[in-house]
């Protein structure tokens, strides 16, 4: 700071930090100078001086960031009317600067969004968001014209949430497009989109979506309070926010859901959840969610409910397999051989001949290898990906068995576990399971089945103690609610799904019937 001050011997020697907080001065030249200091080094800023076509011509300044504005619009609807408009009425000479500004705002500019601003901070925020600012000599306030337009990704199908039926649109990086996608789905005015700005440097637009009377008021307030308390330089993704607002911050059990699908997001909103979106990220953050909701795939609601229920049960099974299969296998073949039918045990014993590691270590190594392959496969260029998975799965797996490093059944077990872990519709849940699986494996190596059970109790204790914005993490299993469980492990048909899952403080629980609101 001091360094900058000494380098600037100009008229203004106020540090930029204070400069920002100042109000606009009526003297254009003054403002110009201040802005020049503040925007020094920003090569993409455009400052266009012009003379307003009034009597007499008044100097003016147009300010925008190149690339963020629609230049055509600026030229046609801002600059052109300002330069050419002779709409001066009868006694234009007598107009006070403020009246002049009003006239420009209401009668000259042909841009839909125009509003006034009066301080430099606001000005900077607007131009960096892609608006164009118009300053006129003599006026102590300026005008902002909404000219935002920039290159962005088109609306595409989200790659990570693939469904066969149902809407295909995905959210994109531009917040405004996303609000449009959502507003198009929920047309009620009760659907609120509240904006806030987080990030001292990034000044990121963060939007809070909820449906009034359905989303519990206290929950919305609490979330807002927590968001407002965040003090960070930049926010690039909702994940930045989650770690501030979660109920239990130090935990691998993520207490939120992400989605890129607007239809899924709306589904959550209609259950009274709150969504948070950050400009620049297509991921929408949804809170509160309970762990069991990770079992639900959005597609469940687009297919026959009986089939969907069966798929959910299948996924529940896959969930259990992904979590427990390797540890159960290790427990059974090292501690509880009596559970294996004799003929199977004879074959298992044969396959383990000559394997140098204990079953526990074998499982651990193979599982780690699997995780490694998966991690590597994730980062690989698309063209190389399949090649690596083939190398990993076929060559390493087969060769390891042939070399006697691992036994065949163990490969089968780990492969089954891997497949089961991909069946989880939520990436979050997948991560939790992958980590917990290793804990279970260690527990089973130490105490066999008893170890698994003890680890399971610990898992229960830990998970039951969590909550997501006040919603118990294991709801509706603990605290138990039979009525709501009907839409977790199975999918209830819509005609029976008359109530929303209950959230504390929810005003309107009815989806159907006369008291349906929203």
């Amino acid at each position: 700071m001091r360094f900058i001050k000494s380098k600037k011997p100009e008229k203004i020697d106020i540090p930029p930090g204070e400069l920002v907080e100042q109000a606009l001065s009526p003297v254009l030249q003054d403002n110009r100078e201040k802005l020049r200091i503040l925007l020094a080094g920003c090569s993409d800023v455009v400052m266009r001086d012009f003379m307003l076509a009034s009597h007499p011509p008044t100097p003016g300044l147009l300010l925008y960031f190149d690339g963020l504005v629609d230049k055509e619009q600026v030229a046609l609807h801002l600059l052109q009317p300002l330069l050419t408009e002779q709409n001066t009425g009868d006694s234009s000479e007598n107009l006070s600067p403020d009246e002049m500004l009003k006239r420009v705002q209401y009668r000259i500019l042909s841009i839909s969004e125009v509003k006034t601003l009066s301080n430099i901070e606001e000005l900077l925020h607007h131009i960096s968001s892609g608006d164009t600012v118009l300053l006129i000599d003599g006026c102590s306030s300026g005008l902002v014209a909404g000219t935002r337009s920039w290159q962005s990704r088109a609306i595409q199908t989200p790659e990570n949430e693939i469904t066969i039926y149902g809407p295909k649109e995905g959210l994109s990086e531009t917040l405004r497009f996303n609000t449009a996608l959502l507003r198009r789905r929920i047309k009620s005015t009760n659907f609120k989109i509240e904006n806030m700005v987080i990030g001292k440097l990034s000044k990121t637009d963060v939007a809070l979506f909820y449906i009034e009377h359905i989303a519990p008021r206290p929950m919305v307030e609490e979330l807002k309070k927590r968001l407002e308390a965040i003090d960070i330089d930049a926010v690039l993704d909702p994940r930045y926010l989650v770690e501030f607002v979660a109920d239990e911050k130090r935990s691998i059990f993520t207490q939120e859901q992400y989605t890129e699908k607007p239809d899924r997001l709306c589904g959550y909103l209609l259950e009274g959840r709150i969504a948070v979106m950050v400009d620049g990220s297509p991921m929408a953050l949804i809170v509160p969610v309970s762990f069991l909701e990770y079992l639900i795939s959005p597609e469940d609601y687009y297919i026959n409910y009986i089939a969907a229920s069966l798929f959910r049960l299948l996924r529940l099974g896959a969930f259990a397999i992904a979590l427990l299969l390797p540890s159960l296998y290790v427990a059974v073949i090292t501690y509880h051989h009596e559970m294996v039918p004799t003929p199977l045990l004879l074959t298992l014993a044969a396959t383990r001949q000559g394997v140098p590691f204990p079953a526990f270590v074998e499982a651990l190594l193979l599982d780690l290898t699997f995780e490694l392959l998966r991690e590597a496969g994730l980062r690989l260029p698309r063209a190389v990906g399949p090649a690596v998975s083939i190398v990993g799965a076929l060559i390493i797996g087969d060769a390891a068995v042939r070399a006697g490093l691992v036994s065949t059944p163990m490969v089968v077990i780990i492969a089954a576990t891997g497949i089961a872990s991909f069946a989880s519709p939520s990436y979050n849940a997948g991560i939790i399971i992958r980590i917990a699986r290793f804990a279970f494996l260690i527990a089973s190596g130490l105490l066999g089945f008893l170890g698994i059970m003890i680890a399971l109790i610990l898992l229960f204790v830990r998970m039951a103690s969590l909550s997501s914005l006040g919603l118990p993490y294991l709801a509706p299993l603990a605290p138990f609610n039979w009525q709501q469980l009907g839409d977790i492990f199975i999918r209830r048909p819509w005609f029976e799904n008359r109530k929303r899952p209950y959230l504390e403080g929810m005003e309107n629980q009815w989806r159907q019937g006369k008291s349906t609101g929203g």
Partner: protein
Amino acid sequence: MFRISHFQLYCILLLLVGPVAFLETPNILIIHLGCNAWLAAIGTIVPGILLAAMFQYIIKKSSQPFPLLLEEHLGKILGKFLGFLYILAFLLASSFTLRLFVDFIVTNVLPQTPISVFIGVLLLVGFVAIKSGLENLARCCELVTLLGLPFAFLIFLAAIIENWNPGNLLPFAYMDLTSFSLGLLSCSYVLGKMLPILSLAFFCPRQEKIRQVMFLVISTYVALMLATTLATLMTLDISMSNIATFPTFSTIRLLHIADFIQNIDIVFIGIWIMGVFGSVTIPWFMACYTAQQLFALKDYRFLAAPSSLIIGVFSILMGKNILELLAVSMHIIPLLYSFVFILLPFLLFLLTLFKPYPESATLAEPGSKAESSA
């Protein structure tokens, strides 16, 4: 101020009475009554309901939850003394359950592992649970019950069906009154462990439904005892269950479903551990809670660590060998439980008979000093 739901209360109470009884009671019943043991199991419903009515009455007549209601009815000194006694009793109950369980595991599953490992592991789990508070404990109990109860019934149903042998239940009602009342006693004293309801009821939203909750607990308990006793009788008959250390477990060992599901005893033990976790942790929690209320401490959570040591030491010192332990479980524990959990509340009940109802119809929240935050 947190609340526990009625279902949570049901689960907590069931876990208090169920898991231990499940291992021991059929054994004791068969020793006393032979093939008519199941009659005593059914009969338990009568003393059970009386007991529940007694607890309900005490709750109605009191304005404060359990350790404080002692002071309310008995005066400060006697109340404090009894409260202290209850802390000890809860700790003892917890450590006895722990020890019985650990001995069971070591007998049947992992004979080489020293018992201190199991005691340590279970105490750790309980410690974590208590640290996270009653609300969380209640949720864990729910999970455990949801998982364990259907499984237990399923197993015993399978055992009964597989070894269907009603002849083992004959001769019907051929028993003398003494042994029947002994059996009845040994089956129903366990229900005295429902005593924590005197505290927990005050955390429930609607007190009127507590009667139903207790009744449900008693019927589940009776059904469970009935199923276990019947399964044991049909599978093992009297003579074999008399020589078995843990007849219930021997029954499960013999189960053989569909030719390839065999020897599932370890799965059963695994599920059962969860129940034992409840049985150990809830009295332990009660001990901490009572201590906190009694000495007007700010929180009960920090008591979890010191009390875990006490329980650990208690349970190791409880008995030298399995014979001593079985003697403790057959003679000392019933006496202790009946005295602390049935007789004392009964005296309290007699006392409250002559007391007016507390002023407010709806019961007060547990004292302001009761709970810092949920």
